[in-house]
C-alpha cells in the first residue's frame, strides 16, 4: 500500500509537467490542425536556454526563467512565421514533414551549441518531504506547483481574454473566425508562442530532476501518449492525460518491471512503453481519446 501511494503521488507530480507540455501540443493542433512533432525539441531547448541563462549569463533563477520564456517565445513565433506560415493550406503531410524536419534541425542545433553531455540544472533545493506516507522531493513539488500555476494562467487567458477567445474561435471554425475579422495567422503565431513557452517551462522542470541533455527531446515526446489518451484537441484532456501517463509509467516501474524481470526478460524499459500500451487500449474504446472531438452537432 505504501508503495502504491508513493508511486501514485510521484506519478501525479511528474504527470502535471507532462500535461503542461501536452497543452502546447494540443493548442497548436486545435488552432491549426498541425501535429507538432517538434514539441519535444522545444522542451529540450527550453532547458538548455535556462541552463545557459544560469551558468553562462549568471542570471538568478527568476531572471533565468524570464530569459528562457522570452527566447523560447521568440523562437516559437519565428518557427510559426518562417516554417509553418508558408505551408498554410498545403497538404497535411507536408506540414507534418516540416515539423519532423524542425525537430531534427533543432536537435542538431542543440548538439552544436551545447554538446552531447548531460549537464546538471539544480535550481531547486534538495530536501525531501513526507506527504501522505510518500516521500517527495522538493524538486518535484516545485515542478508540480509551477505546472499547475502555468496551467491556471493559461486557462484564464484562454477563457477570459480577447486573445484566448480568438484562439477558441479559430479552433472551431476558421472561416467564421475570419468573417468577424480575426487574423488567423496571428492566432497561429500565438499558439506556437504559447507552445514554445509552456514547452520550455516543462523542459526546465523536467531537467531540474534529470539534468539537461538531448534526451529531454525524447522525454518531451511523452506528449504523444498523453494526447492520444486525453484527445488531440482537448486542453483538459492534455492535463488529465498527462497525469494518467505520469501515474501509469510509475506503476509500470513499480509493479510491472519486477514481474517482467522474474520472467527472465530485461525490465526497466516498461516506463516508456507502458503509456503507449495504455493509449492503445483507450483508443480502442474511445477513438478520439477520453476528451477529444466532442463536436456539438445541432442544426
Amino acid at each position: 500500500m505504501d508503495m502504491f501511494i508513493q508511486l501514485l503521488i510521484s506519478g501525479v507530480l511528474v504527470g502535471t509537467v507532462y500535461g503542461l507540455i501536452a497543452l502546447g501540443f494540443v493548442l497548436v493542433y486545435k488552432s491549426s490542425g498541425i501535429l507538432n512533432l517538434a514539441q519535444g525539441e522545444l522542451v529540450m531547448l527550453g532547458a538548455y536556454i535556462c541552463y545557459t541563462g544560469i551558468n553562462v549569463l549568471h542570471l538568478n533563477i527568476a531572471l533565468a526563467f524570464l530569459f528562457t520564456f522570452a527566447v523560447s517565445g521568440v523562437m516559437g513565433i519565428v518557427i510559426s512565421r518562417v516554417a509553418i506560415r508558408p505551408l498554410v493550406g498545403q497538404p497535411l503531410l507536408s506540414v507534418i514533414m516540416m515539423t519532423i524536419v524542425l525537430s531534427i534541425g533543432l536537435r542538431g542545433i542543440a548538439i552544436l551549441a551545447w554538446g552531447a553531455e548531460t549537464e546538471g540544472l539544480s535550481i531547486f533545493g534538495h530536501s525531501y518531504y513526507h506527504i501522505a506516507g510518500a516521500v517527495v522531493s522538493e524538486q518535484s513539488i516545485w515542478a508540480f506547483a509551477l505546472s499547475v500555476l502555468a496551467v491556471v494562467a493559461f486557462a484564464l487567458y484562454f477563457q477570459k481574454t480577447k486573445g484566448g477567445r480568438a484562439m477558441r474561435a479559430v479552433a472551431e471554425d476558421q472561416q467564421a473566425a475570419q468573417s468577424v475579422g480575426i487574423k488567423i495567422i496571428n492566432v497561429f503565431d500565438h499558439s506556437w508562442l504559447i507552445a514554445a513557452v509552456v514547452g520550455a517551462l516543462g523542459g526546465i522542470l523536467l531537467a531540474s530532476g534529470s539534468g539537461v541533455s538531448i534526451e529531454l527531446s525524447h522525454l518531451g515526446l511523452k506528449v504523444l501518449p498523453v494526447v492520444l489518451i486525453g484527445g488531440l484537441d482537448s486542453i483538459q484532456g492534455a492535463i488529465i492525460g498527462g497525469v494518467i501517463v505520469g501515474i501509469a509509467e510509475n506503476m509500470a516501474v513499480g509493479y510491472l518491471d519486477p514481474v517482467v524481470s522474474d520472467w527472465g526478460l530485461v525490465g526497466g524499459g516498461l516506463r516508456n512503453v507502458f503509456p503507449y500500451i495504455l493509449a492503445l487500449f483507450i483508443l480502442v474504446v474511445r477513438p478520439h481519446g477520453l476528451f477529444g472531438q466532442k463536436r456539438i452537432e445541432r442544426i
Partner: protein
Amino acid sequence: MLTVNGVEVIYSKVILVIKGISFEVPDRQIVCLLGANGAGKTTILKAISGLLKAELGVITDGHINWDNRRIDRMRPEEIVGLGVVQVLEGRRLFRHLTTEDNLKTGAHIRKDHAVKRDIDMVYELFPRLNDLKKRTSGYLSGGEQQMLVIGRALMAKPQLILLDEPSLGLAPMLADEILKKVKMIQTEEGTSFLLVEQNAKATLEIADYGYIMETGRIVFEGSAEQLINNEDIKEFYIGLSELGQRKSYREVKHYRRRKRW
C-alpha cells in the same frame, strides 16, 4: 455604397463561377440577390468579404469598391475593419463558446470600450438571446442560432452586412421574424444589407432593390416592387402561377427551358 463592377471569379484556377457581374448596394438599403442553387450567390458575397481566398477562389476580372476604396485585394480582417461584414450561410457560430462569448468575438476588431453596451443592444434586438447568455451556443435552436450570428455581425458595428440565406432551414414563421429584424436593423441603425435568399416572396417584401442571378450572371434587376409584380419572377422564384397555385418543379423546369432571360 458598395459597387461591384464586372467581377469574374474562378475557383481552383479552372472553374469559372461568376461571369462578369455588376451591381451596387446603396447606403441604408436592403438589396437582395435571388437565384437558384449554384447560381453563385455565396461566391459573390465571399468575393466582397475577402473570404474567397481561403477557398482557392480568385477574382480574375473587375473590381469591388466600398466607399470609393478598392477592396477586392484586401484581406478579410481589413474589410471587416472598413465596416463590411459577412454572415456566412449555415449559421456558423462558434459552437463551444457561449452566446455572450460569440457576441464578444464579433467585436474582435474594435478597440473602443462600448462593447458591453452593444452586447446589451443585441439582447434588446433579440430578447431571446438575453435568456441564453451563458448557454453553449451549439445547443441553441436553429432560429436562436441565426439570431446569434446576425447579432455577432452587428458587434463589429458594420455599415454593410452581407447576409447569406438567413432563413435556410427555418420554419416560415421564424424566417419571417428574422427578416423583420433585418428590416428593423436597417431602419433603426441605418445598416445596409446585401441579402441572399431562396425565400423570394418574403425577401422582396423587405428589400428595396433586387437582382436575379442565374449561373454566374445577373439576368434581371429592378426595385422590389417591380420584381414582385413581374410575372416571370413570380413563376420562377415565388412559385406562384396566375391561378395562385404552386408550380411543380418539373413544370417550372420545362418553362425555364422555353424561356431564357
